[in-house]
């Protein structure tokens, strides 16, 4: 039986192997390739999407568990926090190879939605699930702070 859910606001229907993780439905079937495969076991966060507005590792999310829910990917994420984060990322040139950055940006947006003024400890905890092998962490931390300040003036 087909699984239906909202993907970036549009109805998406998938009737393939029900074991297929959300990641591969997004990439191979919906053709949205901003969400990346990095490990397949929820260790690296490159596959981070928002499920009903909260951070979710799509590589370990069985497709049938998203039925009737709303999935947002890097291509569809919007709103003042999302715009502030993307802008902050570009302003200080966070990406190096760039492969993990969709996941980093999505995690950062999810974090700021929950905690608009995160402390260093909040950032460490909120971003701990996202690996960057280029180690752009110094700038990720700075960009999150910049986005928070842009969004919520002191």
């Amino acid at each position: 039986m087909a699984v239906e859910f909202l993907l970036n606001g549009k109805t998406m229907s998938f009737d393939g192997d029900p074991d297929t993780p959300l990641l591969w439905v997004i990439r191979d079937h919906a053709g949205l390739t901003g969400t990346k495969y990095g490990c397949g076991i929820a260790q690296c966060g490159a596959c981070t999407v928002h499920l009903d507005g909260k951070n979710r590792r799509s590589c370990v999310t069985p497709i049938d568990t998203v039925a009737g829910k709303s999935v947002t990917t890097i291509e569809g994420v919007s709103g003042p926090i999302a715009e502030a984060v993307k802008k902050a990322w570009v302003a200080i040139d966070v990406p190096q190879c760039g492969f993990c950055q969709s996941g980093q940006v999505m995690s950062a947006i999810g974090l700021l939605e929950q905690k608009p003024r995160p402390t260093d400890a909040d950032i460490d905890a909120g971003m701990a699930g996202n690996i960057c092998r280029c180690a752009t962490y110094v700038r990720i931390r700075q960009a999150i702070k910049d986005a928070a300040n842009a969004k919520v003036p002191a």
Partner: protein
Amino acid sequence: MTAIETDRRKFLAGSGLVLGLMLPMRGARALAPDPSFAPNAFVRVLPDNTISVVIKHVDFGQGPATGLATIVADEMDADWAQMRIEFAPANDPLYKNLAFGTMGTGGSTAMANSWMQMRNAGAAARAMLVAAAAKSWGVPAGEIKVAKGVVSHGAKKARFGELAATAATMPVPEKPMLKTPEQWTLIGTDVPKIDSLIKSTGAAQFTMDVKRPGMVVSVIQHPPAFGGKVKSVDDKAALAVPGVVAVKAIPQGVVVYGKDTYAAMKGRNALKVEWDLGQAETRSSEAMLRDYLTQASNPGTQCEAQGDVAKALAGAAKTIEATYVFPFLAHAPMETLDAVIEPKAGGADFWCGSQFQVGDTSAVAGVLGVPFAGMTLHEQYAGGSFGRRATPDMGHAVESAQAVKALGGTTPVKHMWTRENDITGGRYRPLMVHKVRGGVDAKGAIVALETITTGQSFMIGTPFFDAKEPFDDAMVEGLTKSAYGLPHYRVGVNVMKNGVPTLWWRSVGNTHTAYVMETFLDRLIELGKQDPIQARLALMKEERAKTVLKRAAELAGGLSAKSGRARGLAFHKSFGSYVAQIAEVSAGADGVPRVHKIWAAIDCGVAINPNVMRAQVEGGIGYGLGHALYAEITLGEGGVVQQSNFDTYRSLRIGEMPDVEVAIVKSTADPTGIGEPGLPPAAPAVANAWRRLTGKVVDRLPFAHPSNLAALGAKA
């Protein structure tokens, strides 16, 4: 954009100005005979007033696309907003790395080998645009000004795009006038990276994102030990998985093809394979280490020597010895190795973030049995490499092409490794052992130092090694040609045979030689009761080395730290660049150092883009530190790799990343690399701080190795 026709030096109708240049080969060690001169084409001015710079290097994060475009833009006096990039096709005569003789990126050479080439390319383009304006306006070229992409003479103004067609008919200047450093407007400034926006919004395309009509996805199961072969395959269960279209054995393992990625992965899990391990490397890494340690005291092949170490040590007031062990390390780039190959009549299209563009493309052509001329490389952004995408045997291109061929050679295939393939797939930084001894005189001055390196060479026997060389410098670089001058000094090397495939890994031999030199020197300095900064300065032969060391000390405000913390210093020269770092640490909860901050001073010649350079130092420190603290690849009984993914091969995470502050020493020397040199001093600076804090010497990496944690526990 379409590939450029580069064999003609004249304007091609409709495509704007295509600029060809005649440039001499400089310092190239060619793999094949080359003519003394070769035409090159790097600059395209399009009628829409954009300028596309053809990038001959792969960009996996070190920023060469931005850097090369910056050099061209500056010499042209272009507006940064009009700059675009495209990656070069596979073409050695036009796009070889002048340091390699073939297309390739590595050894932190992207800026160094392209510096004059790109300056000349930009300057010639500017001269031709000026000549075109002079002709159109009937004014002397010398009176024409160019700024931000606009050519002007009094009230007359034209944008580059408007002049492109005329400029293309102008003669190509053989020796265009280059700007002087005072005239640079972009070089030396923080030009925004050309790919930050697409990489922050999910729009950048990587090989893994390529999809072709009718394409299948393939994954592979490799043998459990290096050198194993397929004996038999039971593919019934795999073929029963919905979406699996085929299972084929190839020399590298068993390939499962799926209509989508998940089907292929699920099919692989259902495979039953019997392996022939008769020729496989089945030793454990501990057994290998025992073999290495039995050889480690042999004096080995002499790489460098001055004075008489044995005599000097015999006369020394105090001596110490150490045996260092460095584990195998995986590169683990975020994007696992992948390639898309689509066969066509007489050739194939090939999508890849290739690090050896011509080598990989030739390898695919060879396996498919098509001429190189029938191949089209579509170079992609690559999701990290750290050396992994450049293998002398073009291993991943060959495996991918084998997967295409085994399926019949007509279906487009995306062949991708899973993270498990990546972590267990070899091509590691080799296991290395260093036996070191040294001594100080009665005044505390260092009198002698000997290092004997024992390990595997990944160069010997490949086209990258000249058989006439007496030893493989990639094993000892940094100990050889050291920036320090020691009165009695010897570097020896023992080469061990090992069936585990190994490879250069970000900063190569310097990953271990800097650690050996800087931690052992620090211990000798302490033994002689000398100051770590002054003692190093006294030994340094080069002014540039002294300058970065003093600058780092100044930036950090010296080596004293507040209570509960300690600071350590390390300096290393690699790839022609000078880097000094001071690390501040405290005791972490997990028994390894918590690194709070690293201050770094660098001199890598002319700073093309200081922001990119700082980013590379930050990243190099994070990459070096993450592995030094936590990572190792081990082989268990039967030669089976014991790590498989990021749960067991531990990566640095954000909470473990120190603050980094970078000072760039002003330099007018030709630019050298910065992709790698930031890495080597990080781990020894931390080790020196840790020794000062805890009294514990870490001679076996990683810091989290049980032997180090046990040593700490014993102290507590």
